[in-house]
């Protein structure tokens, strides 16, 4: 087991390296000049040139990469051009909202999607299967901001149950924290319910086709026992994999929900940084996402050991 984990962590180094180089070049090639952006409307071209020199952007790309990579090795992601703050601090401030939203969303999604998927697989081809799948696919088909507006209009404005926007730190009490995250996580979970339900249905359907289900039924076990202890238990690996993908997506890619609900998360920070050509922040964030993505994959792979005894590392 230990050698596997060590090997996987070593294997992440090339991936992160590739990501670092990819992002560095991608940003340098993007039009738009951070110095001009920051200098504001009335700055003259000379002033912009002075600022660019101050940021070290006038040096050749390879030198810039060398400096940035040198600092990276000492764990310093550098300082944001735009916010005059350490990138690590920026990420730290935004971590809690993003993780809270991700955790709440994925739990709602899993609690609803897995039973949905199992029932759909059990009644494969029947009207119930078709109905459940059509509903879950609906989650895929509506852009999240449209859904968000409808929910805000209905739940917050008309019914007044939940707030329209904003995020309350957990430290200021679990009540307001959950009170503010309820609507955003419900909006977001619709997409992930569709993602997870579809894979659950397919893998449980696969499992129900195996011989050991026939054995279980031949043993006269109640149908629910057959479905869960024999069907779902054997379908766990692909389900956990898709949940892993969901978590990774939730950390990095929920900028739309964060914008509509004004949640100061990593997604919004990244988009603002990309739009403001804040190179150090974008690089730091994307490295962070890649590390999280690789970490989630590792945890998912390790979880396989508990889900399927045949898998040994």
């Amino acid at each position, binding site marked *: 087991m230990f050698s596997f984990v060590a090997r996987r962590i070593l294997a992440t180094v090339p991936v992160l390296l590739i990501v670092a180089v990819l992002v560095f070049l991608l940003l340098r090639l993007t039009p738009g000049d951070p110095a001009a952006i920051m200098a504001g409307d009335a700055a003259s071209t000379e002033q912009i040139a002075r600022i660019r020199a101050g940021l070290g952007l006038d040096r050749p790309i390879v030198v810039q990469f060398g400096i940035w990579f040198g600092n990276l090795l000492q764990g310093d992601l550098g300082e944001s051009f735009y916010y005059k703050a350490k990138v690590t601090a920026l990420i730290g401030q935004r971590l809690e909202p993003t993780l809270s939203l991700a955790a709440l969303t994925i739990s709602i999604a899993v609690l609803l999607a897995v039973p949905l998927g199992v029932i759909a697989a059990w009644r494969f081809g029947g009207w119930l299967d078709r109905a459940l799948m059509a509903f879950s*696919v609906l989650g895929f*088909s509506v*852009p999240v901001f449209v859904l968000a507006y409808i929910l805000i209009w209905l739940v917050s404005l008309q019914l007044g149950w939940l707030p329209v926007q904003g995020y309350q730190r957990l430290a200021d009490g679990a009540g307001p924290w959950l009170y503010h995250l309820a609507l955003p996580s419900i909006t977001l979970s619709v997409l992930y319910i569709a993602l997870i339900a579809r894979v659950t249905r397919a*893998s449980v359907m696969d499992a129900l086709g195996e011989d050991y289900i026939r054995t279980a039924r031949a043993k006269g076990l109640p149908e629910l026992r057959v479905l869960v202890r024999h069907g779902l238990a054997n379908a766990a690996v692909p389900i956990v994999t898709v949940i892993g993908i969901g978590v990774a997506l939730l950390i990095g890619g929920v900028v739309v929900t964060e914008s509509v609900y004004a949640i100061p998360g990593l997604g919004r920070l990244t988009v603002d940084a990309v739009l403001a050509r804040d190179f150090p922040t974008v690089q730091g964030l994307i490295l962070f996402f890649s590390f999280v993505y690789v970490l989630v994959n590792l945890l998912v792979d390790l979880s396989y050991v508990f889900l399927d005894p045949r898998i040994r590392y």
Partner: protein
Amino acid sequence: MLDRVFRNLSVRIGASVIALMVLVAIAAPWLGTVDPSLFDAGSRDLLPGKVGEITTLEGETLKHTFLMGSDSFGRDIYSRVIYGTRVSLAVGIATALLALAAGIVCGLGAGYLRWLDGILMRFMDGVMAIPAILIAIALVALWRGSIVTVVVAIAIPEIPRVTRLVRSLVLTIREEPYVEAAIALGTPTRKILFGHILPNCVAPLLVQGTFTCAFAILVEAILSFLGVGLPPDIPTWGNIMAEGRAQFVSYPHNVFFPGIFLAVTVLAVNILGDGLRDTLDPKMAKRV
């Protein structure tokens, strides 16, 4: 095999709705539409069904009933949604084809040539590690908002997913006896890849293609929402909604009609994908 596919209800529903949308796209100019980019500030924010006027490029104004109302520029939402069908479908289909093509080449390479496997898959992990939306935003900002840019921007994050699928298919199919028999018959590697292995990947790739197409149409809308999608003079459902979102509460028609078209199309493509997967290759879903 084809008849079995078309007997599936989901496939029939999905395919017929998409066919309808393609028809709408082709017949756009003859469906009582006007030039989607023409506007007249006078007929701003008209509710559906109202009558207003449009000034053409030559300057003469003509009476026009706005079936689906007008947006904040005074442009006819009905025309923009109909013409939007063209671009949104084009974005969806082009992205799917591009992602499939690149994915197939990389997937076959990684699956069949051991030495290439390690490097390529690490690279793909790298690309997959970066959230798709961010790659799309950076690329669109990189080259200016044109259809080609948006398609490439959405396709690139999808390529690793297709590559992984093709690679896993190649690894299983190359163990099949008929491939070993071909090797024994002295068939060159190229012919084995494209003659034996690829034809047997068609079913799962078709299914993956439909999911990518649905996803692409959605991402285009999200890009427009973030202000980095296609420019408004190229109407797509995404940017009509993104522009209309400002007055969602007072003039919901800006978002409602394109939203319906988008949801129906993406739903149809997804249902088609589910139907194809259930009939062609039930095992495939686990790999997606």
